[in-house]
């Protein structure tokens, strides 16, 4: 007698999780722990997971430092067997493209975005007047 079919890896490791946090420092740890838990479902190394925790924290911190308490930070994590894509949307009213500003900043102000770019495999950001500025970060398994 045959047992149940093994689950399709694509089905078990693919998904989307959304999180909305207040734009305040005390909530960054929630984003960090959530991304860590999601990354743990994929075959990332411990070092990769630490990189992801730092990258999501830096993305949230960049928004918070631009205007603490204004609006929310919307985070979406999309998983597949080979990569984790994290969307971080700045929902502050009257926002500017803070990710572009910080990437051009000198000194310690630019450190956060610099770290994101150094630790992730792919980083891009888009500006939408209605939806807000979005940073997209991709980490690939085994890259």
């Amino acid at each position, binding site marked *: 007698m045959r047992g149940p079919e093994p689950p399709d890896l694509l089905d078990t490791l693919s998904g989307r999780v959304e999180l909305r946090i207040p734009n305040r420092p005390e909530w960054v740890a929630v984003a960090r722990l959530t991304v860590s838990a999601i990354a743990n479902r994929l075959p990332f190394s411990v070092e990769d997971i630490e990189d992801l925790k730092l990258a999501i924290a830096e993305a949230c911190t960049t928004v918070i430092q631009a205007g603490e308490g204004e609006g929310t930070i919307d985070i979406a994590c999309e998983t597949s067997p080979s990569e984790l894509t994290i969307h971080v949307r700045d929902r502050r009213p009257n926002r500017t493209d803070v990710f572009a500003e910080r990437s051009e900043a000198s000194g310690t102000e630019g*450190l956060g975005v610099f770290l994101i770019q150094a630790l992730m495999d792919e980083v891009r950001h888009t500006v939408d007047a209605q939806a807000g500025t979005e940073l997209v970060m991709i980490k690939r398994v085994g890259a």
Partner: protein
Amino acid sequence: MDIKVNVRESSDDAYVVELGGEIDVYTSPKVKDAITELIDQGHYNLVINLEKVRYIDSTGLGVLIGGLKRVREHGGSVNLVCTNPQIKKIFDITGLVKIFGIFDDEVGAQKALA
């Protein structure tokens, strides 16, 4: 989320700031306050022990850099104690290994201040 800050005087006219937990945008002001207080009191040779720190981000790095800049204005120095490979990696990526003395233990960090 937690951060522990313990300040103590060492034997060689230096102060040790022992940190534990996570240093991020929420907790780094507490670290900044401790370092600022020491500098305001005229203590310009500091060892910052990161051995019990599990996590540090750019705001934490910014606090350390700010402290180093201030003590250097008075001819002082900041040495770090760090053994966590992930945290060492962050200092490496950012190039901060070139501006901080980074040691495996407090004894080495204190000797290098002298």
